[in-house]
């Protein structure tokens, strides 16, 4: 049977067919839907981890104990998981283990464009790179065979377009694989130096054997179109190259890409007068070919960054110009993403914005990073998951050395980021007598990646109820003495808390407590606790509105200013009655709409 699947869905299907026993992940675009889809197969035990290091470590444990295991993460997540990865590369596996890295050429929703193929080389582990959904499924199944045969974790490198584009997949049967009985293996899994030194040689031997495998792997093959021009390519770039060149060139398609097949590449280069290397991000294949002494054309012609889409290839290699309808730039303006109507982050950033001159804001990864834009302009930094508390602490220490500048550092992160790596950072601040104002924007969900549950939501991936981590309790246990919990939609309360924290000369934590508007599951208790949440609407009394636009600084997309009448109105279809604009309006022109009370 054929089905149209995204690459992420296809990986999940492959994991099912390969009879994987254990899967873990931390959400991150573009990899998030892999685990979500895995969780729809009842045969596989799957769980969200609080961060990528934990996800990989649990998968390592599952493998050691004799199960087939799986972990998925976005490219920067592998940085977090790199520590266990590099030693797991030495020990090898018991049950097969695959780690998916979902890279982001073009940085659609990421902070950098790192090419994680380099991790395969760096950690000395085999790597597979699918080009489409069918390969995503088939290669995952094969990855488990390879992992067990060659005794190594497999790096499975996907990119945004492979993850998120859909194409037809021939579904297969699930092949049951039994759990392997556990036997203690000290010489394999206890990586003390004496054993590490032995394992180091084992890794080298394994990679040498895999060099031979790479030459005959079914994932590395030539498509001979009887042309003088050859193209070597991998991943989605292979599809793009096909689109741009069709059968006017011959191809060497590489799917097993660490170690690369030296003879295949060498022979292919020798057979063709001109060889293009078409790959996204780093010159990974190109440098290998050049070390082999081959005269190939790569990044000197093709861009070093961004997606290698067919138009990019055409422009670079065929000097073809654009032939479509012209753009008229006067007809549109930007449409950056913004906080949802009803997002609890708006009230907080509105109040924080008033302190702009006195503070520096260290941001973090999550929906609240949208506060970089209009009308908040609120972030001074954004580095990586969990960095706001710690980078803010470092900034504060330096600011304190400056006599002429007394600005305080306010650090902000969400609940999921706090569980991810924020806790460690906060420990550091307390331990080292820091003086930052730390804000946890607790909206009880991992929002940015599409509302996944986390240790603070009370539900696990299987949607069973689970212990809710008490953020306030954790903060107190770490040793923070000054803690305030506020309703961010109550501007006075929020403002008081910010002023209170700025007046203290030691570190503090403000927890904003209001759920994400997009979270879909709320029970009666929630509605009782968050008074009439989203059950009302507000309206503007036109006669009272002076057109001062003060309310627009709330950044709510339900407020519309009409330049003709110079009045504001509220979109009744989208307003959720949070009252933030109502509290801002200096003329009391905004009121509860009694139609909805």
């Amino acid at each position, binding site marked *: 049977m*054929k089905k*149209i699947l995204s690459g992420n869905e296809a990986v999940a299907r492959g994991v099912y067919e390969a009879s994987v026993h254990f899967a873990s992940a931390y959400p991150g*675009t*573009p990899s998030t839907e892999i685990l979500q889809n895995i969780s729809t197969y009842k045969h596989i035990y799957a769980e969200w981890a609080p961060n990528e290091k934990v996800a990989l470590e649990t998968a390592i444990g599952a493998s050691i104990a004799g199960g087939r295991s799986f972990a998925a993460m976005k490219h920067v997540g592998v940085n977090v998981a790199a520590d266990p990865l590099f030693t797991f590369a030495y020990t090898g596996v018991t049950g097969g283990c695959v780690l998916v890295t979902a890279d982001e050429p073009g940085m*659609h*929703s990421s902070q950098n464009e790192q090419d994680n193929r380099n991790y395969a080389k760096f950690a000395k582990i085999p790597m597979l790179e699918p080009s*489409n959904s069918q390969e995503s499924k088939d290669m995952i199944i094969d990855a488990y065979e390879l992992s067990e045969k060659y005794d190594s974790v497999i790096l499975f490198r996907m990119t*945004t*377009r492979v993850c*998120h*584009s*859909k*194409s*037809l997949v021939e579904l297969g049967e699930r092949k049951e694989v039994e759990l392997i009985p556990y036997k203690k293996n000290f010489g394999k899994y206890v990586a003390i130096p004496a054993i590490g030194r032995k394992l180091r040689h084992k890794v080298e031997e394994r990679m040498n054997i895999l060099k031979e495998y790479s030459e005959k792997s079914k994932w590395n093959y030539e498509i001979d179109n009887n042309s003088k021009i050859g193209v070597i390519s991998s991943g*989605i770039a292979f*599809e*793009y190259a*096909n*689109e741009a060149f069709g059968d006017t060139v011959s191809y060497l398609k590489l799917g097993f890409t660490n170690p690369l097949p030296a003879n295949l590449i060498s022979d292919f280069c020798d057979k063709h007068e001109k060889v293009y290397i078409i790959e996204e991000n780093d010159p990974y294949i190109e440098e290998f070919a050049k070390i082999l002494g081959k005269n190939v054309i790569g990044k000197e012609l093709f861009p070093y960054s961004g*997606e290698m*889409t*067919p*138009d990019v290839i*055409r422009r670079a290699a065929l000097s073809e110009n*654009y*032939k*479509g*309808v*012209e*753009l*008229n730039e*006067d*007809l*549109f*303006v*930007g*449409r*950056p*993403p*913004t*906080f*949802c109507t009803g997002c609890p982050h708006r009230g907080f950033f509105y109040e924080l914005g008033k302190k702009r001159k006195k503070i520096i804001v260290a941001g973090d990864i999550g*929906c609240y990073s*949208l506060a970089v*834009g*209009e*009308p908040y302009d609120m972030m001074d930094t954004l580095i990586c998951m969990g960095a706001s508390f710690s980078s803010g602490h470092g900034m504060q220490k330096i600011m304190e050395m400056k006599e002429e500048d007394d600005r305080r550092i306010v650090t902000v992160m969400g609940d999921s980021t706090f569980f991810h790596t924020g806790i460690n950072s906060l420990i550091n601040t307390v331990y080292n007598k820091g003086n930052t104002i730390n804000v946890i924007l607790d909206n009880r969900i991992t929002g*940015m990646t*599409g509302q996944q549950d986390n240790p603070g939501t009370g539900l696990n991936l299987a949607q069973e109820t689970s212990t809710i981590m008490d953020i306030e309790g954790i903060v107190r246990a770490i040793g923070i003495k000054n803690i305030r919990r506020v309703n961010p939609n109550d501007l006075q309360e929020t403002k008081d808390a910010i002023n209170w924290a700025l007046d203290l000369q030691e570190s503090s934590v403000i927890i904003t407590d209001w759920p994400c508007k*997009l979270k879909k599951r709320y029970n009666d208790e929630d509605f009782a606790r968050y008074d009439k949440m989203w059950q009302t609407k507000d309206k503007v009394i036109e006669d009272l509105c002076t057109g001062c*636009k003060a309310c*627009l600084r709330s*950044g709510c*997309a339900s*407020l*519309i*200013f*009409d*330049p003709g009448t110079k009045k504001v109105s509220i979109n009744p*279809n989208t307003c959720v009655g949070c009252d933030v604009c109502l509290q801002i309006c200096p003329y009391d022109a905004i009121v509860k709409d009694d139609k909805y009370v």
Partner: protein
Amino acid sequence: MSKSIKVVGVGGQGTILLAKILTTVFVEAGYDVKMSEIHGMSQRGGSVSSEIRYGNKVYSPVIEKGDASILVSLEQMEAARNVDYLKKDGVLIVNDYKIHSMVTLNGKIPYPDNILEDLSNRVKTYVIDGTNKAVELGLDKVMNIIMLGALSKVIDLDNLKWEDAIRENVKPQYIDINLKAFKIGLNEVK
């Protein structure tokens, strides 16, 4: 030979469902199909797009600029933003509806008012009163299916089973209203 259709709009307007039905229709008719969309910020009121390519054999899941035969836009300004994806002889189907962005919302920069005029002078354009027709029907959300109806008329292939694809992709209680919406859209293209 493969053909490309691009569907654009603003987060929350229903581009994803539209693209899903479109994909189903081509798959069921036996074409090779690839579909691509960028997730991430789409729920936060940003611009969104889905790309569908079909034919005997499709390689790239993304549409090159200047290569789409049809651009369906659920919003005016998004049509202007994406019109360069169209071939010179491509067709634009646009919903006659404006959604402010954070930039035009506060009135600092006005929402451009001559979009439809400019575009229809340069490209073959069908302007569909999708949002109003959907509201008349009693469910503003089915605007996307009205646009799908219009699109089906422009594609004009009789091997495509549109109504089956709609049935397959919407919740049972919404099938009737969606089928009605589809017919309305179909009749909007003369």
